[in-house]
């Protein structure tokens, strides 16, 4: 009944209230919620479901933060730590073809100066003039600002001038302060994350947004997080896509269980319904697995993300997914979901459709 009222309002361009959103999260009717979300997705993107041929590069796993849920980071000199030189990064990018975007995230390295990152981005831009460069989460940007003594606007402008076009949405985790302090006390606050994103949007960098769920948070915390993203998007319009990240419990200090497949699908659907000002909801297969990601295309998602060659962060936390999917794999999954497969670049320009 409540769903019917909400569905009609959304169709007319109305919005979900906080109470309604919490109510739906607690509601067991995954079919009804999924259907309304799928309709909302179709109004935005028709029958299209996007994918991208991209490559992930993690320049280093040495990190001063050491978040409790992260199985990837290492201290300097710890076994298993690594750092890539800029030449090694360029080499890795040269070894693959047909890639339209590089995705770069890494640890907060204790010794690398801000100039190192500028050199890295400039070198990639120079060698690959057409490649979309998506790099550095808000956490890294904040770190660059601190180690360089420059303001956010200056840091982001310099990166943009070097060739950075897009920022990934990582590091948002969950904004709710109490939980955030338990999960990642060393990490920037939710407020600071949003501040970085606002400045990035202001200087003309497009970004994604994420939410890490399935750990210690409540449904209220999830709704709070999504509403804060919606508010910021109302202000800037700079977010391209939202990605809900299912928490992976293995090898992390927090432990716990995997989120259920049902919760994953409901969270996708709820994000589609709440984030009515986001164009895209991504079912990131490396996090959700290809099976839940494909199913999510019927629950409001319109993007499976990429072929992703080399992904380390999630796999070190016990992701049970494979490390890569081919272009054909992604097209097959999308078609079997009854959608039109669209290959996109980093800015959602259509490269191929079929």
């Amino acid at each position: 009944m409540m769903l019917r009222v909400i569905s009609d309002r959304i169709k007319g361009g109305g919005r979900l209230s906080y109470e309604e959103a919490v109510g739906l999260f607690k509601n067991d009717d995954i079919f009804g919620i999924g259907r309304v979300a799928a309709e909302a997705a179709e109004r935005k993107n028709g029958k299209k479901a996007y994918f991208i041929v991209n490559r992930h590069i993690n320049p280093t796993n040495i990190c001063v933060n050491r978040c409790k849920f992260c199985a990837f980071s290492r201290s300097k000199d710890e076994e298993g730590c690594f750092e890539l030189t800029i030449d090694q990064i360029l080499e890795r990018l040269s070894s693959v073809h047909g890639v339209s975007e590089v995705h770069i995230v890494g640890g907060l390295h204790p010794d690398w100066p801000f100039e190192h990152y500028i050199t890295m981005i400039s070198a990639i831009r120079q060698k690959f003039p057409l490649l979309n460069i998506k790099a550095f989460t808000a956490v890294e940007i904040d770190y660059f600002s601190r180690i360089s003594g420059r303001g956010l606007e200056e840091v982001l402008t310099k990166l943009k001038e070097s060739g950075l076009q897009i920022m990934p949405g990582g590091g948002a985790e969950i904004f709710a302060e109490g939980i955030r302090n338990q999960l990642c006390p060393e990490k920037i606050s939710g407020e600071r994350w949003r501040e970085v994103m606002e400045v990035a949007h202001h200087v003309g960098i497009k970004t994604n947004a994420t939410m890490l769920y399935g750990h210690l948070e409540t449904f209220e915390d999830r709704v709070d997080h999504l509403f804060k993203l919606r508010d910021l998007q109302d202000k800037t319009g700079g977010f391209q896509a939202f990605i809900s990240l299912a928490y992976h419990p293995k090898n992390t200090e927090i432990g716990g269980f995997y989120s259920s497949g049902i919760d994953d699908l409901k969270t996708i659907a709820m994000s589609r319904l709440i984030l009515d000002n986001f164009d895209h909801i991504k079912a990131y297969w490396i996090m959700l697995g290809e099976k839940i990601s494909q199913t999510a295309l019927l629950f409001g998602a319109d993007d499976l993300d990429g072929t992703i060659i080399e992904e380390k962060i999630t796999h070190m936390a016990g992701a049970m997914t494979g490390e890569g999917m081919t272009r054909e794999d992604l097209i097959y999954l999308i078609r079997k979901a009854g959608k039109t497969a669209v290959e996109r670049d980093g800015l959602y320009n259509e490269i191929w459709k079929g």
Partner: protein
Amino acid sequence: MERISKEEALAHFKSADLLDLGEKADLVREALHPEGMVTFVVDRNINYTNVCINQCRFCAFYRDAESPDAYVLSEEELFKKIEETIALEGTQILIQGGLHPNLGLDYYTALLKSIKARFEINVHGFSPPEVCYLAKKHNLTVRETIQILKDAGLDSIPGGGAEILSDRVREVLSPKKIKSGEWLRVMEEAHGLGMRTTATMMFGSVEAPEDIIEHLDAIRSLQDRTRGFTAFIPWSFQPGNTELSRDNVGLQGSIRPATAIDYLRVLALARLYLDNVRNVQASWVTQGLKLAQVALRFGANDFGSTMIEENVVRAAGVSYVVSKEDIIAAIKAAGFEAAQRNTYYSIIRKF
């Protein structure tokens, strides 16, 4: 509720909205199991031999008798596996193997008697291809063969070897394996002798939607007569390391595994069609825990086995390392009460 006809089922399969189909199946599941409980069995899958004369094209497990990694399990190994199963609170062993040219009925009866003399455990074993092979070898009827196995200690029969109960498909997949009629015959005779069995379906290879409906209809019709099936278990063909995927029999391009959406559709349709089969299993072994959880809202009410050991699917490149605790946690996270059951779906303990 009125029965779904074959024509309706086919229309659902080809064009129904998956969420609508899932919702209907979910309502049926809830009506049959209003207590909101999802069950599982603690058992061990013991493959007594990997030697098989059938050489099915979808199988990565079988070997020739001369192959260097061909084996027949020794009594000692078998007993050890059963002891370990009981130590893990297991109530059942699922014992299946290839069709070994040198093993006769005395091997099977001796095996069953030796197990029953030592252990209190339900022996769920010997799928219809094995039963038929023994009958033929010893010139016995299927009924006589089952009676001999039952007298030696066999408790129930697994539904393996059904694959798709359409001879057109079987001709491509497993030309040497028993035909549909023989599979159904074994089940009917077993039910007639008072034994319970399961029914399976392996989809996602070379079948058409019509074949799937044909299969479901064969199960439903037999169940109308015997009421002997405890559960229906659909699972998808796993193409790794199999002859079928290497040769792409009759297909353009390579065979890809059935996707999640295909699986949910088949599962929901099975729940709707098989109105006389009480339990439908989610296959976490082939689908992973997360999709198996979703399956609990698309018609399934049982999580199958904890699979202390699974050799056959693992040989095809699929393996999920999952403990009993993982299964209980997964069921609870999906919003259900978790309970261990026995072979006959009686509850042993709740978690």
